[in-house]
């Protein structure tokens, strides 16, 4: 694959399409995914844009051994900043999904001059006390279970670890029912779960949200449950130049479930 050398690491990316009059759109995957997750929207989006789909440090195509402390939000933000600088295409448009949305949000906070527009598809993370009156602090109640999953993976039981992880999030029996194609993408990135449980994400604060300067689009799945839609709507209420688009009949992987609708929303925002 093509790579750019950032912070001592060869960061792989897929570079497809040509932009007419807009900057490249850099796409950042979420937990347990990699550059391939954007495969289903490459067609519609590359009709008008150059897409750069990165794989963050330690995700496939790297075959990571799970060792070291270089899997973190801070490292991934540093890497993405260095990547965009090295790309040398001027300010880019940036799209992040889930944990990748968190990485993009932090980059927008730190280095606004690198971005023209920002798209956050159900960004991952938590709200701190300035945004959520019910905030209690402390580690996520699911951390113990995620740690069990990561321990299984570290011990070589990839299938068992992922089953435990996926079923914790989405209910018993879910892993076994996943299409093999989706399972394989998670298997290819299973070792990153070992880094993930050590990943310390500071919660989003009101001041964080208010500091985002560029035009920002939040995209959600209308049927996503739990914390993700709450985070999305709360951030959108405080990011100054923001819009929200919810895609009917979809959940967290909304662009895989409705690639055409997702692409239309993105294209319209980038053109406007």
């Amino acid at each position, binding site marked *: 694959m093509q790579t750019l050398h950032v912070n001592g690491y060869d960061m792989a990316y897929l570079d497809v399409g040509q932009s007419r009059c807009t900057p490249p759109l850099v796409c950042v995957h979420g937990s347990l995914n990699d550059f391939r997750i954007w495969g289903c929207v490459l067609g519609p989006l590359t009709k008008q844009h150059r897409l750069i789909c990165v794989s963050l440090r330690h995700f*496939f195509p790297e*075959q990571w051994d799970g060792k070291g402390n270089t899997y973190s939000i801070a490292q991934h933000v540093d890497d993405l900043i260095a990547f965009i600088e090295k790309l040398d295409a001027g300010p880019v448009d940036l799209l992040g999904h889930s944990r990748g949305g968190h990485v993009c949000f932090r980059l927008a906070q730190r280095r606004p001059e690198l971005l023209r527009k920002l798209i956050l598809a159900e960004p991952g993370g938590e709200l701190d006390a300035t945004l959520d009156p019910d905030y209690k602090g402390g580690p996520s109640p699911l951390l113990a279970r995620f740690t069990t999953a990561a321990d299984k993976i570290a011990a070589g039981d990839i299938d068992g670890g992922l089953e435990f992880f996926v079923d914790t999030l989405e209910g018993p029996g879910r892993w076994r029912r996943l299409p093999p194609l989706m399972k394989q993408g998670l298997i290819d990135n299973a070792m990153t779960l070992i880094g993930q449980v050590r990943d310390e994400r500071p919660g989003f604060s009101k001041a964080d949200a208010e500091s985002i300067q560029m035009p920002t689009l939040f995209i959600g799945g209308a049927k996503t449950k739990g914390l993700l839609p709450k985070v999305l709507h709360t951030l959108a209420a405080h990011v100054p130049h923001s819009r929200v688009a919810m895609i009917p009949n979809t959940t967290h992987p909304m662009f895989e479930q*409705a690639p055409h609708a997702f692409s239309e929303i993105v294209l319209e925002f980038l053109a406007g």
Partner: protein
Amino acid sequence: MQSINVNDYDMAYLELGHGHPLVCVHGTLGDFRTWYAVLGPLSKKHRVIAVSLRHFFPEHWDGAGDDYRMAQHIADVIAFIEQINPKPVDLLGHSRGGHIAFRVAQQRPDLLRKLVLAEPGGDLDSTLDPAAVRGGPSPRSARVLVSVNKVRSGDIDGALENFVDGIDGEDTWRRLPAAAKQQLRDNITTLVGQVDEARKPYSKPDALAIQTPTLLVGGGDTKGSLSVIWRALAEHIAGCKTAVIPKAKHWMFEQDPEGFSRVVTEFLAE
């Protein structure tokens, strides 16, 4: 994307992993993304090079020109492999891409170390199938023609439904995940090109001519001609091996990525 200029065309490809080069050729309506499900397992021991043939995505082809031909794609793959080092390479083709890989092996055995054909597409002539009809369109090309007429009248999803259900049975298209459907839509103009591709049927002398160590792979639940062709070829390719992926159909490597990768990796390691 990375690309190599072949016969005045920039042929895009995705390359990852380390080891002996394994060039992968997608089938009808596919592109380099066809292999996404097996990139992980295959790239552990191989340098996987997944090409997009002329006019497939990432090109957004308008359907113009007369160079969507089976012979052109074969010539392009040959020119592509000529620029890969080290040679000879391993070559893997699925469906129509299996047909291309077979013809490359026939024309240029010097370029190939090993050959893997996953349900290669095409027709059998009368030397391989006594019931083969001489002249007139085969059932396969008749089906493509129905789809093409739907594309021309603007019914793209209807065209894809007819094509996909023709391969793996009724309701296959409707049950496909939205992501898979979109990737087929991205290549819809190539289906129109396929009407005039001039694909020749396989003959017994063709099969006997293959000198490269060959593995033929099929899905255990595939029905119709795609389940017949590879078995007919296997009877005449000297020393070839075969493998069936249980409970899988034509897109067997998406339905059982680990199982498919295991048989391919084992064969290439022999």
